[in-house]
């Protein structure tokens, strides 16, 4: 069956008509459809399909040519043509939201807000392109990602310096900018002290102690744990110091870092001496091993009294002679501080982040003797969250210490604040209880946080103390307490 008809006074554009042809031809029993204006080209197409009109045509006419298997199919197809020609598209005229795929697109969308900051926590090998977007847009960037090659870090920080912006990181977990906590940071009061930190937990320890002493911070600018190493040369530290020097809210600066390269430390110190705002160092070394002491020095500089740092005493328990120190840390700088404080009294301490290369534990976390492990180290966070979020590995190690039979004093940090476990004591208390039921195991905890933190310092301290732990707001105090228990006070 075929039907070839011409209609006058009907116009639709060719795209619409091609759609109608295609849709009608898809119906069962319909073998060929051409709905088109009767132009010479379309008449030739119709002739090729055996559907040429017999009557004279003009290009303004609409040709409706259909071949179908039977009358019903033909009638159905003709009706479908009429329906399709009459149909109206629903047009909203508005685009579906197209997500921004890159930091560059996101900053572009945000527009001209000069104080905008980019935060990047994508896998390390891809972080550099996102960070470069921010620098190109004239914005500072916090790179939480680890696994960023050091040569990329140097290139980014050089570009940032030229653009007059700051790269915080990579592997920067902590910052506070104008009162906004980024990453792992605590709820601390605003105030006059600016921190430049090549150390996340070091910055948290210091800002929390300052808060407990009634002193607030203006900003905490993280610069990444490698910034004061030889390869990076303090690129971001120098820029952060200069920025705090120019900041009206900042009256004093405290610089905190893991043990740096001596040449870089010297250059940074020299730069700090040239600033108008006084810079005090809380850079860890064998000579200056104590973050709490640095805070106390700053308080004295400011003419303020040093408070009694909060603590919860532990139970009076006997320590087995020959017991060793087992430090299980989530914070790398706190682990360093502990080793620096304890080594003079205990001698060599083995670690996955050792003070000297020959003390490297390698992969053997269950080594005997004095051991301090940093569970936040890159090698132990591949494929899993930071121990401040996911305590699994550390709890395993805790159970292993108790099961090993080696007499020990257990020293741990628990870090509170944004980004951390909402109730770390909730996971730790059952593990401590089980361990202490199995072995005589005194437990000492450095609890880094403030009352204002979502977890609340006192609530967590009380819960941990109830499980038999001695709890200290100062990691240095906790370490000294553990050394006392071991009879090895320095």
């Amino acid at each position, binding site marked *: 069956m075929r039907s070839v008809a011409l209609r006058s006074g009907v116009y639709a554009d060719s795209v619409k008509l091609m759609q109608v042809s295609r849709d009608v031809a898809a119906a069962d029993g319909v073998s060929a459809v051409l709905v088109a204006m009767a132009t010479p080209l379309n008449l030739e197409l119709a002739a090729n399909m055996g559907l040429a009109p017999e009557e004279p045509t003009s290009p303004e006419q609409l040709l409706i040519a259909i071949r179908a298997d039977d009358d019903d199919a033909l009638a159905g197809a003709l009706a479908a043509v009429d329906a399709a020609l009459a149909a109206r598209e*629903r047009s909203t005229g508005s685009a579906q939201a197209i997500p921004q795929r*890159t930091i560059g697109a996101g900053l572009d969308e945000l527009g001209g807000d000069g104080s905008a*900051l980019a935060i990047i926590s994508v896998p390390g*090998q891809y972080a550099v392109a996102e960070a470069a977007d921010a620098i190109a847009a004239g914005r500072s960037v916090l790179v939480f990602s680890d696994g960023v090659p050091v040569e990329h870090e140097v290139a980014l920080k050089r570009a940032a310096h030229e653009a007059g912006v700051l790269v915080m990181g990579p592997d920067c977990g902590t910052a506070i900018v104008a009162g*906004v906590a980024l990453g792992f940071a605590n709820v601390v009061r605003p105030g006059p002290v600016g921190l430049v930190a090549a150390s996340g937990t070091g910055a948290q320890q210091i800002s929390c102690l300052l808060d407990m002493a009634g002193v607030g911070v203006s900003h905490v600018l993280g610069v990444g744990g490698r910034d004061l190493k030889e390869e990076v040369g303090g690129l971001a530290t120098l820029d952060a110091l200069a920025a705090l020097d120019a900041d009206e809210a900042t009256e004093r600066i405290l610089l905190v870092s893991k043990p740096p390269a001596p040449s870089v430390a010297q250059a940074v110190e020299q730069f700090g001496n040239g600033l108008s705002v006084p810079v005090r160092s809380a850079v860890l070394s064998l000579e200056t091993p104590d973050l709490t002491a640095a805070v106390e020095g700053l308080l004295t500089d400011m003419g303020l009294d040093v408070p009694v740092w909060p603590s919860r005493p532990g139970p009076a328990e006997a320590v087995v002679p020959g017991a060793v120190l087992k430090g299980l840390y989530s914070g790398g700088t706190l682990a360093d501080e502990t080793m620096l404080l304890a080594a003079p009294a205990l001698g060599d301490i083995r670690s996955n982040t050792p003070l000297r290369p020959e003390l490297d534990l390698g992969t053997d976390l269950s080594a005997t003797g004095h051991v301090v492990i940093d569970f936040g180290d890159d090698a132990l966070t591949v494929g899993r969250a930071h121990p401040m979020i996911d305590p699994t590995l550390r709890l395993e190690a805790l159970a292993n210490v108790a099961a090993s039979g080696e007499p020990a004093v257990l020293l741990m940090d628990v870090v509170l604040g944004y980004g951390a476990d909402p109730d770390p004591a909730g996971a730790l208390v059952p593990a401590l209880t089980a361990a202490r039921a199995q072995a005589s195991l005194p437990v000492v905890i450095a609890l880094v946080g403030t009352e204002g933190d979502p977890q609340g310092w006192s609530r967590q301290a009380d819960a941990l103390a109830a499980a038999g732990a001695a709890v200290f707001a100062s990691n240095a105090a906790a370490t000294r307490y553990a050394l006392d228990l071991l009879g090895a006070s320095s």
Partner: protein
Amino acid sequence: MTLGGLLSGPPAVVAAGVDVFSDALRAQGAEVHDVDWRPPGFGDPADLAALALDPRRNAANRVAVERILAAGSQLVDVRPAREVIGLADRTLLHSGPPLTWATASGPMRGALIGACLFEGWATDVEDAERILANGEITLDPCHHHRTVGPMAGVTSPSMWMWCLKDPVHGGQAFCNLNEGLGKVLRMGAFNDEVQTRLVWMRDVLGPILQKAVRGSIDAGNDPLDVKSVLAQMLQMGDEGHNRNRAGSLMTLRELSPSIVAVEGVPSSDIAAVLKFIGGNEHFFLNLGMPTAKLAMDAARDVPGSSLVTVLSRNGTEFGIQTAGTGDRWFTGPANTPVGLFLGDYGPDDANPDIGDSAIMEAYGVGGFSMAAAPAIVRFVGGTVPDALATTERMYQVTLAENPAMAIPIMGFRGSPTGIDVLKVARTGWLPQINTGMAGRIAGTGQVGAGLVQPPQECFEKALAALAEATRTA
């Protein structure tokens, strides 16, 4: 150092990666914008990093894109290819990257056969196939001669070419004259109808257009500003690649007075020329393409730039070039467009992607300005919001917005211009191209029109080469 005001107040944050940080920021009442980050669509992470960190890249891309935006386009002459680009006897230009008779697709072979017949180099189809197969005819890409050609792009010495000039950078670009729709050489048809039309274009259309264009300029008029016509088209429902209706009519309006003023030819020829132009809604395409070519050529040879200067297909392969890698081609097998078909042609009849016309997308119109031409999106059964979404996506793979090419429905935002190989890799979004479809059998002609994307392989190769260039810079 003030870090751009970073420390002056609570910062707005743009975040990519895990959402725990954004959640913590929202809990503090901070302003947070999460980007929908995904791992790159392709590319060695070391190559992506090398490009991202290349200190030359931003400045080089800025230079390249500024040249594109600044380039102008004037119609200054109409001349045969033999004269204007010195096209030698027995040489044929074709679209896309280099190819041989052996690798040529059906429509490309059809067009090459038709051109040999047209030039009188062969007596019949078999003769043409023989001289093409045994290498008697030299084949060369249009792009190697500052030329572009739609579909097969086959240009022979006797064919007339539009001659365009960029008054800003002094560049020149050329393109043959559009034959219309249906059975045409560029779609691979070569029958008597095609030959008759080509002869008429050679003997009547070309000479009249030459006299008209020269006559107008000699009379003291400014040359036709083709870029301005293209800009106006976007305000009138065209996107300048698959829809050129308004542009063709405007061109007819601009050329008509000087065509009518041509002396010494029968009025029947003048009438035939006007009817031919008025009856071909793609007549403007062959002026739009060299306009885009002028702009993209202005951006050539900028070391360190990851901007795409050429998107082009020969019916077998898709090829791209970048500003940072000169005239080197990066190729991959051409995809077959998806769209609507004429008559009872279907997907099996369509040849893979063909033509230099994707230069329009490289310039930021065509598929990139789909939002300006919602009619086009229906080629794939899409909707008006789809058209807007396509243009929105293309903003994220390009380096600039072209203020001369404003898209009304986007709030007169400039068209997304200057494809960045690095952005294509990072987003995984390949350029969107609007195109005609040629029949895969030589001699068929046009079978439909639709949408297509380049093969990812072109961009993978270009990315690797740019990274290599960065390392050795």
